[in-house]
């Protein structure tokens, strides 16, 4: 019987009520007294020297309060990068200044050149049109390989070249890997592109800065996944505002997918300008601005080689990747192609020798940073595509080849510096076989052929690393932040509970799932427990939500804080029951003395804590509130197996997804309904990457896919119903809930199976196509079919 509450129950989401009735509180819904509006004048060329900015005419326009240019921001810091990479030669990465407003030079289309603050948004827009820019256009650097050629135009004059870093991982593995490849019975080589994407949460970014002269207090309302990270980066590194004088609030946030992790120029601008004009300053991004100012994702160009012995065992894997950083280093840009990518190159397989080389490159494009999966989709795509290609070259079953090489014993230390604590890759593959009905594929293919279509089946596995940690390790690897999280469990006098969490919910349903855990621990109804998040003035210092970390890291902090609360409550109960603490048991909201019928209710104990008349004041303090910070011992390693069936229209090259199945191992699951929803959304984004989405630049650095007319978002009629399952559960061994994280799996696990399926379909139609780069649009597939 499915549970109806607590851990494992598909509790309906409480947050849905406000969203379904139109009373959510998104940042753009907030207007404050005296508010002004800012419109950013953005660069429409990719690379230019700024010779002059004439704002005189614009300043005289109606409603203009003040116009800012790069010169106004010279005294403040640039936007910091949160992760320093050390290259193969022991040198730190090249790290150019990232200004709030371009000063002296424009480096990508969409970069802010001037900011007009006016009484109304339309006045600000009108005035921006009167600003005269004197520019000298420079050649744009767009293609990464061209950017690294001798004599290439430099994006940053002060750097030695456009190379940010040349990273080798693990450098000590290089010679052994080279030798193993040289001596292998078979080597499969694949060159591929992991296409540049735009995260596109449906809510565009918004920033509203306020300043109070009364107490020298700054407040920023912003669309962020991690308000404390923004407070730290913006306060300490950009604007020099002490943290106790800066409050950052991220209320309801309409999706993030990574792109709302980062600290952006617009946030710093609105905070800075609110003090400068002594009025609140609000910015709401248009979708067109979002395309040219939200950090993009992916954009890797890779050559991968997989070496096998005569028995088809994997003996070595070597990859050479160029990773586009764009024009500046966004907050976590440098970590994505390195520590979030290189460490996952073992995949689900016991390949003994692995060497990863990544060259990160500056170009005249929008900065690239983490997007759902961040590094792990790029790793998975390479591994799972090259395995499929190897199977085809060797004439063996691609699933059997995977199974033969699975890691089967845990813990497993990979050659790329991580240790998988637990997993069962055979179990998810067996579950997938059952769900996806591989046995019925031949009949479905025959039916498709009869209808004039080619049908293909593609399978892949994936592993990801979530809840990146521990802090002392990531610090050694270059992280400039800790990666713990925090929770405060505040029990009120009458027994209800507020839990203040560092994690941020922007679609994940924390307001529903986190109380399920507390309810299970204490035995009081879920509706007696509320989650508070998204406001630095209310919550403990937590690192926010990304990398599928909320439950594994912040949920663990919440459990630790709740354990402290329960331990203290047991002492109070022991006093009230005149028993020893060690004999007190808590079940269903009742404290009882073991082996007796003496008990006291949760609410009586909590009331005693706040009205401590009959209370052991000499031993314990009044009140019932505890905070815990949790720093994980290791990553968690969700894994799974995915299958996609496609039909290809031989006349047009159009691909349709006919079936999609996902068997995931997320460890223990708190709310299965929410977990399934996370997988559905991830799959849609992965299918989007595989078939539809592409962020495209022309050779001059013009962004040619800057609206929903040009950037193909997945729509309802592009996708089928999915089969998802998470009944294979190998609980994480090192966090108190045994959970692993589920937010990114769908986006990581789905692109290779889609491409594998299309290749399979084309092969079945007699087309000897080995690879097509994503997105597999009709024109690309048709083109490949023509040879």
């Amino acid at each position, binding site marked *: 019987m499915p549970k109806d509450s607590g851990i494992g129950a598909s509790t309906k989401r409480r947050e*849905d009520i406000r969203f379904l009735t*139109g009373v959510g509180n998104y940042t753009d819904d907030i207007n404050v007294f005296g508010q002004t509006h800012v419109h950013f004048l953005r660069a429409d060329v990719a690379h230019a020297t700024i010779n002059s900015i004439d704002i005189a005419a614009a300043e005289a326009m109606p409603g203009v309060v003040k116009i800012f240019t790069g010169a106004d921001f010279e005294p403040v810091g640039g936007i910091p990068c949160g992760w320093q990479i050390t290259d193969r030669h022991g040198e730190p990465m090249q790290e150019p200044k990232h200004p709030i407003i371009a000063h002296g030079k424009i480096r990508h289309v969409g970069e802010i050149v001037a900011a007009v603050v006016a009484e109304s948004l339309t006045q600000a827009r009108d005035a921006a049109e009167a600003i005269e820019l004197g520019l000298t256009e420079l050649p744009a650097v767009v293609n990464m390989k061209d950017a690294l050629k001798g004599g290439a135009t430099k994006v940053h004059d002060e750097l030695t070249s456009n190379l940010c870093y040349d990273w080798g991982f693990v450098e000590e593995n290089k010679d052994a890997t080279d030798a193993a490849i040289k001596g292998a019975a078979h080597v499969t080589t694949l060159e591929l592109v992991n296409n540049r994407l735009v995260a596109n949460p449906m809510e565009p970014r918004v920033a509203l800065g306020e300043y109070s002269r009364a107490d020298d207090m700054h407040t920023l309302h912003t669309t962020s996944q991690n308000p404390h990270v923004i407070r730290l980066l913006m306060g300490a590194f950009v604007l020099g505002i002490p943290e106790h004088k800066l409050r950052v609030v991220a209320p309801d946030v*309409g999706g993030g997918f990574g792109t709302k992790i980062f600290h952006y120029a617009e946030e710093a601008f609105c905070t800075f300008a609110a003090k400068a004009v002594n009025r609140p300053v609000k910015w709401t991004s248009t979708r*067109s601005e979002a395309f040219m100012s939200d950090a993009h994702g992916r954009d890797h160009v890779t050559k991968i080689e997989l070496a096998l012995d005569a028995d088809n065992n994997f003996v070595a894997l070597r990859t050479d990747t160029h990773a586009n950083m764009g024009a500046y280093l966004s907050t976590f840009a440098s970590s994505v192609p390195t520590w979030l990518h290189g460490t996952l190159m073992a995949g689900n397989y016991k390949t003994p020798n692995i060497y990863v080389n990544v060259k990160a490159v500056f170009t005249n494009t929008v900065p690239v940073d983490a997007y759902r999966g961040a590094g792990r989709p790029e790793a998975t795509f390479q591994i799972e595509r090259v395995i499929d290609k190897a199977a085809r070259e060797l004439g063996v079953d691609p699933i059997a080849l995977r199974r033969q090489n699975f890691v089967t014993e845990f813990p497993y230390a990979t050659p790329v510096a991580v240790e998988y604590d637990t997993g069962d890759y055979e179990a998810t593959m067996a579950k997938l076989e059952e769900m996806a009905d591989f046995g019925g594929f031949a009949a479905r293919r025959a039916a498709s052929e009869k209808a004039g279509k080619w049908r293909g089946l593609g399978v892949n596995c994936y592993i990801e690393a979530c809840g990146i940690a521990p802090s002392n390790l990531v610090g050694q690897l270059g992280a400039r932040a800790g990666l713990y999280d925090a929770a405060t469990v505040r029990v009120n006098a009458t027994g209800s509970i507020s839990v203040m969490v560092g994690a941020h919910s922007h679609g994940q349903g924390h307001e529903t799932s986190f109380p399920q855990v507390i309810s299970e621990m204490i035995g009081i109804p879920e509706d007696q427990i509320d989650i508070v998040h998204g406001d630095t003035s209310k919550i403990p210092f937590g690192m926010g939500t990304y990398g599928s970390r909320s439950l594994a890291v912040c949920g663990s902090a919440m459990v630790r804080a709740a354990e402290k609360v329960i331990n203290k409550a047991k002492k109070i109960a022991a006093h009230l029951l005149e028993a020893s603490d060690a004999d007190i048991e808590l079940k269903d909201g009742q404290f009882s003395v073991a082996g007796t019928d003496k008990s006291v209710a949760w609410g009586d104990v909590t009331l005693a804590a706040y009205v401590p008349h009959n209370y052991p004041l000499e031993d314990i303090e009044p009140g019932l509130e505890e905070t815990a910070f949790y720093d994980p011992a290791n990553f968690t390693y969700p894994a799974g197996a995915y299958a996609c069936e496609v039909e290809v229209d031989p006349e047009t090259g159009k691909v349709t997804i006919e079936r999609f199945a996902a068997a995931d191992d997320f460890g223990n699951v708190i709310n299965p309904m929410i977990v399934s929803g996370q997988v559905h959304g991830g799959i849609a984004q992965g299918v989007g990457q595989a078939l539809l989405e592409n962020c495209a630049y022309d050779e001059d650095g013009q962004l040619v896919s800057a609206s*929903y*007319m040009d950037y193909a978002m997945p729509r309802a009629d592009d996708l089928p*119903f999915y*089969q998802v399952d998470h009944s294979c559960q190998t609980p994480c061994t090192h966090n108190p809930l045994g959970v692993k994280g589920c937010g990114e799996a769908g986006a990581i696990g789905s692109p290779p199976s889609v491409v594998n399926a299309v290749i399979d379909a084309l092969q079945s139609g007699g087309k000897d196509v080995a690879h097509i780069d994503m997105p597999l649009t009709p024109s690309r597939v048709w083109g490949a079919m023509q040879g």
Partner: protein
Amino acid sequence: MTQVSMTLNGKAVTGDVEGRTLLVDFLREDLRMTGTHVGCDTSQCGACVVHVNGEAVKSCTMFAAEAEGAEVATIEGAANADGSLNVIQQAFQDHHGLQCGFCTPGMVMSAAALLKDNPKPTEAEVRTYLEGNICRCTGYHNIVKAIMAASGQDVSAIAAE
């Protein structure tokens, strides 16, 4: 500025607007009805869908002045008279048809227009109808399921939660 008057969720409203003021901006900024959202600037995403004289309309595609005298319905007026969720809203909650909630008002208003014209749509008809509503969170699975459930169809056989 011109004065515009309309009926919003059954109540008379009036305001002064510029000729270029979009209906969605009038609703959000002048009337402070912020349930209707803006997710794009090319009339593609559908987060701003409202009903004008009973028809689903993208309120970013219409000037406020064009709604003079019209009956306008938004998500804020969608619930039952007693404040409980209507059948479509309830189906969205029951079937986890929303995550971040930003596209949701447009989805619910579009779904209501679909079911008015086509009380028992097939899966394909639902998907085709939603072509103008983009959701980035759900992969549409539970939205399609919720709309079919709201139409009274048995969705228990549809794969997974």
